[in-house]
């Protein structure tokens, strides 16, 4: 700052994963496990009550397949049956769908795996964008997304466990697939049959696996280039140029695959419903969360006395990113609803109907946590430059966006009557602890400063003005 034209000698720094931070991550994991235990203990009770209350409890005597088939027909009927406007007919009513008690556990595996997989994926995207856009300001904090993206395989495994164990109960198209109904048979569903080319079990496992392999390869490649640059000589821009090429390739791949994976994994819990903006909406949910997490890590690393080259100017820019994409999130949140609301096509309505009728509190809480609080809280310049404000608002945002993913999945899987309870919070905290441990370990693997990056000097002198 100030005398922007003086050359500054930047020294390499080595991050040490302090015992205090280790303790913090382990506390998160233990707390998470305790809450998961509490959640599972409550699960049985809830399920019994639920069985006793629902009329379909009697179906337990029949075979599982038949039982599920009827459950599915009920669901299909609900999603197709009525137009929500009084002028056209009675309102839809949603009931708790009859699912095995442990479905909730696998659905939690699924959302927490998906959430953190996307966090690590969009951090790679963020990294790639810095190269493609020739961004200079972010070079000082470049190691942080570089560490976050290494987390990719862990949530992928968690996600796959969830899918393997619970796919037939999470996705109603998945167990419809097992029924093998032909046209004309009772329970035949033309919409699901039409989508079966995309929504089938092979696709569910093969597609994410192939994509994660491709993403993982590009992630390793970009990290290797970054390490090679560190070991190279100052002034050698060949690694920068190669990184830009791989980043451009990744950006194109990401642009298509991000949407598709969101349709396949998340949107398909309401398989009759579709929204073309859904993939993009998912992207921005994770994008803004990842930027918040990145701001947290940068602030922590700075507080520990590292990264002297990262100033309040960089923090301010991260705050601006958080603010800007909060607005963008709200824009997509509303846009997705607005067109559906205007068009008034019954099958498009189901998604919002259940969320607004049976999950009104969660639906509105989502908007408050992801938009109202961050928008008003981060509006002022002084708020973006204050790390305590960023910490409070950021925590609300991270939880809010996790709750957003929960709200995308759970009403579709379980019908009415679910709550964001101990199990959900516990799973999230456990994986968050794992994430902290993993990312901070990755940060120690190489120097904290991209010492030979051609734009390092620009980042050091970054100044957003008075």
């Amino acid at each position, binding site marked *: 700052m100030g*005398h922007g*034209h003086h050359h500054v000698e930047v020294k390499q720094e080595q991050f040490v994963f302090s015992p205090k931070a280790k303790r913090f991550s382990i506390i998160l994991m233990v707390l998470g496990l305790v809450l998961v235990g509490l959640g599972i203990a409550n699960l049985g009770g809830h399920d019994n009550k639920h069985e006793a209350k629902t009329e379909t409890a009697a179906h337990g005597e029949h075979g599982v397949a038949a039982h599920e088939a009827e459950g599915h027909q009920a669901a299909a009927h609900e999603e197709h049956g009525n137009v929500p406007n009084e002028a056209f007919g009675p309102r839809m009513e949603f009931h708790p769908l009859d699912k095995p008690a442990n479905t909730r556990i696998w659905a939690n595996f699924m959302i927490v795996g998906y959430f953190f997989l996307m966090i690590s994926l969009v951090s790679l995207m963020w990294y790639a964008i810095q190269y493609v856009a020739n961004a200079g300001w972010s070079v000082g904090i470049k190691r942080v997304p570089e560490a976050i993206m290494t987390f990719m395989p862990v949530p992928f495994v968690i996600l796959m466990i969830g899918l393997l164990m619970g796919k037939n109960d999470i996705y109603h198209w998945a167990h419809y697939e097992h029924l093998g109904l032909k046209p004309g048979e009772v329970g035949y569903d033309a919409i699901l049959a039409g989508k079966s080319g995309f929504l089938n079990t092979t696709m569910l496992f093969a597609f994410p696996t192939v994509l994660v392999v491709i993403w993982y390869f590009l992630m390793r490649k970009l990290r290797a280039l970054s390490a090679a640059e560190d070991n190279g000589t100052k002034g050698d821009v060949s690694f920068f140029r190669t990184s830009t090429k791989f980043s451009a390739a990744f950006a194109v791949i990401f642009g298509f695959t991000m949407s598709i994976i969101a349709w396949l994994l998340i949107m398909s819990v309401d398989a009759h419903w579709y929204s073309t903006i859904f993939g993009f909406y998912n992207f921005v949910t994770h994008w803004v969360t990842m930027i918040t997490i990145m701001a947290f890590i940068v602030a922590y690393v700075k507080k520990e006395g590292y990264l002297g080259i990262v100033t309040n100017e960089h923090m301010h820019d991260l705050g601006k990113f958080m603010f800007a994409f909060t607005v963008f999130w709200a824009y997509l949140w*509303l846009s997705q609803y*607005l067109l559906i609301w*205007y068009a008034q096509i019954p099958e498009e309505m189901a998604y919002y109907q259940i969320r607004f009728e049976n999950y009104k509190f969660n639906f509105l809480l989502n908007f408050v946590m992801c938009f109202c609080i961050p928008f008003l809280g981060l509006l002022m310049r002084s708020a973006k430059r204050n790390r305590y404000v960023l910490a409070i608002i950021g925590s609300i945002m991270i939880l809010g966006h996790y709750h957003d993913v929960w709200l995308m999945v759970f009403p579709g899987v379980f019908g009415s009557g679910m709550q964001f309870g101990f199990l959900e919070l516990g799973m999230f905290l456990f994986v968050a602890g794992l994430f902290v441990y993993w990312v901070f370990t990755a940060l120690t693997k190489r120097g904290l400063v991209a010492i030979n990056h051609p734009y390092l000097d620009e980042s050091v002198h970054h100044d957003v003005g*008075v």
Partner: protein
Amino acid sequence: MTIMGILDKKLSLRDRNKMLIGVWEDEDHLMSGASELANAGVHIHDIYTPYPVHGLDRIIGARRSKLARIAFFCAITGLTLMTTMIWYMYVHDWPMNIGNKPVRFTPSWAPVMFEGTVLCTAFGMSFFFFWRNRLVHGIKNELLDIRQTDDRMVVAIETVNGMDEKAVLDIMKKHGAVEVREFHNGVQTVL
């Protein structure tokens, strides 16, 4: 004189005390010169450069721009204006049944309110930005040096009683000012 000219009086270089002008050809020398002037306690009226020079604002102690606050008030104005407009048109004056949607506050209002807010903010900010930078119609350009929009950087210092003018000029020369002048009653004299 136009209305803009009257409003501009406070920002104009007219009707000021004698001003000392230093002209530089590169920003490195300009920065060091401006730093020393500021350290010597000289109040720098303004520095005119053909492109932004980072860090200069901090050196001359420029206050933070009020543009953000103006943007906020423009946004509030736009939001109020558009909410009132759509309420008047769609609820009060001529309610219409479109797809059996309710006429009161509905999601369809949001785009109008949003666009109106953005429109007012964008126009308001542009106007105030150009006005503050003296780039709107009705304001006469006052270039201290014809090349200040091209390749020269001009430091303007308004003299006050008790100012050691010679010391100021010496600092300018020492830091590589290619020309020093004084400016009084619309006349420039090369020193």
